[in-house]
């Protein structure tokens, strides 16, 4: 029997020819990515106590994105500790205030097909859009990775998420993932890899593919992955990456534990109601809900194409007086690109307020958090109780099109009705 993409990468990293789901193997890590929140402030003292330096500074990437820019003494200190540790450990790949880790990693050319990577953040599966096997772990697991360059994994089963057909205009990858969350729930892909296949996926840009793998975290998956194709190759070539393994794919006789099939032709814009991404339904179920804040941000929802989607809706229009539209581009390079192509001008003319690049309000940090009983519609990936501020705030999740359209009317509205 053949192997899936994920099984092939795990086998290679474990130094064996073959792995099967359920086996426990120890893998060597190609890249360990950590950020300011769960990173140096936690691992630094522990490594010191163990008497160790990181196993290989060239394989460690550090990104400050959670507490940027500092808003008080505590966050300023976390960033300082991060900078000092990076210097002490001689780590060259350090991105300070450059954007969110899951975006900066591929943007700066660190990911390619076949790598086995570990990230100190639950949305690390984002890297799977590039054919990388990338999993999220907590700070203690990461300490052991930084010490040894290895990690144990139980080989996961793979769920095939198969999309065929053409997405309608103003329907996006975010709608696809909310539909998956709504169908299979928060544990629907428990400990599995979601491998996305089908002609709908082939036609998606890299920005959109990243939404798919990013949000596999919301269905309990170990990670998500997409086989590299022409679109992947074009992106990686633009980053001057060489030796790209384009052969990487699941064997014809690979074993998929289950398959979820979707027809893109019939997908409507989706909205997830508070307090779970699994509360997703067709937007029409929530049409007219009053909104206080529209937020376009986070790793999953403020890439260049997300900002362009919002601009397409907001061009020549104004935000409702009853709402505030906050936009935190996912990285500083995205801000620069959106400034260059006129996207930022369109957004700010419509009344959007620009925020720094970082995890920000999505994780209840930084600017844009919510007060008691306020209602927000957001392009982010998670809407658990209390996540974006007060525990009595409510967050709806939707695509950049839908969030931008809602900013115009002040109520949840189908983007196709405002265009």
């Amino acid at each position, binding site marked *: 029997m053949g192997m899936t993409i994920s099984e092939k990468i795990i086998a290679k990293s474990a130094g064996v020819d073959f792995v099967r789901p359920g086996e*426990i193997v120890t893998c060597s890590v190609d890249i360990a990515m950590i950020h300011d929140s769960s990173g140096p402030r936690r691992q630094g003292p522990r490594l010191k106590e163990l008497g160790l330096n990181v196993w290989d500074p060239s394989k460690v990437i550090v990104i400050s994105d959670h507490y940027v820019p500092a808003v008080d003494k505590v966050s300023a200190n976390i960033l300082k500790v991060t900078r000092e540790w990076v210097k002490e450990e001689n780590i060259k790949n350090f991105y300070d205030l450059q954007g969110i880790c899951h975006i900066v990693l591929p943007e700066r050319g660190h990911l390619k097909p076949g790598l086995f990577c570990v990230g100190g953040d639950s949305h690390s599966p984002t890297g799977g859009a590039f054919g990388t096997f990338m999993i999220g772990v907590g700070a203690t697991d990461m300490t052991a990775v930084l010490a*040894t360059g290895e990690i144990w994994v139980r080989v996961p089963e793979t769920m095939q998420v198969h999309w065929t057909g053409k997405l309608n205009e103003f329907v996006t990858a975010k709608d696809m993932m909310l539909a998956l969350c709504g169908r299979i729930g928060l544990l629907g892909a428990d400990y599995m890899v979601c491998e996305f296949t089908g002609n709908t996926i082939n036609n998606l840009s890299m920005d959109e593919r990243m939404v798919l793998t990013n949000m596999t975290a919301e269905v309990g998956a170990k990670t998500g992955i997409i086989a590299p194709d022409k679109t992947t190759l074009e992106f990686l070539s633009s980053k001057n990456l060489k030796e790209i393994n384009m052969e990487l794919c699941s064997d014809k006789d690979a074993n998929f534990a289950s398959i979820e099939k979707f027809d893109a032709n019939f997908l409507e814009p989706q909205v997830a109601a508070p307090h779970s991404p699994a509360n997703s339904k067709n937007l029409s179920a929530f049409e007219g809900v009053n909104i206080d804040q529209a937020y376009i941000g986070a790793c999953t929802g403020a890439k260049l194409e997300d900002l362009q989607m919002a601009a397409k809706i907001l061009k020549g229009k104004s935000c409702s007086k009853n709402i505030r539209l906050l936009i935190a581009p996912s990285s500083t390079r995205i801000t620069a690109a959106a400034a260059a192509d006129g996207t930022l001008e369109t957004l700010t003319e419509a009344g959007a307020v620009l925020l720094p690049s970082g995890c920000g309000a999505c994780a*209840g940090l930084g600017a844009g958090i919510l007060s008691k009983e306020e209602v927000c519609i957001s392009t982010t990936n998670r809407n658990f109780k209390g996540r974006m501020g007060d525990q009595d705030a409510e967050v709806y999740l939707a695509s950049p099109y839908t969030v931008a359209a809602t900013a115009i009317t002040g109520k949840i509205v189908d983007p196709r009705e405002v265009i």
Partner: protein
Amino acid sequence: MNTSLGQILNKGKAFVYGDDINTDVLAPGAYLKYSPEVMSKHCLESIDPDFVKKVKPGDIVVGGKNFGVGSSREQAAASLVILGVRYVVAKSFARIFYRNAFNLGLTPLICENYKKIRNQDILEINSKKGKINNLTQKCVYNTNSVPDHLLKIVNAGGLLAELKNKIESNSIKTLRFRKDN
């Protein structure tokens, strides 16, 4: 309150919650920047403001499906450990929380009969035998057996303690020792 990891804390009151107890509930984002000790004072406060006041070393948290869903923040597990909780019983656990728990010396036990446990029941746990003794209801529930490699981690007192043992026994080849040591 002495709640060191070596101490046996396998008997206490059950605090019963529902499905999908997520990391924002266990470790609210607003306190992430502070120490795990400060964070622990806010554990579960959005669904049960009294939990932190009432919980005592040895008490046991009981959830439904997908306990610990959400972020990779290990303060979710660390908060419970700091409060003296050593066992969480649930129908299922989110994968990152499951790893974090063992790494920090908290044992997550999968139990099909979780629904029979009532709030404030007194439970006694024998994780080696895979048994939960409900002293209040006078009955015993089985738990799934804990994989050997995870038992080793939790018995060593967490992943770092296990790593320390491995370093001392010279069994890892990739280590770079600090020069200032």
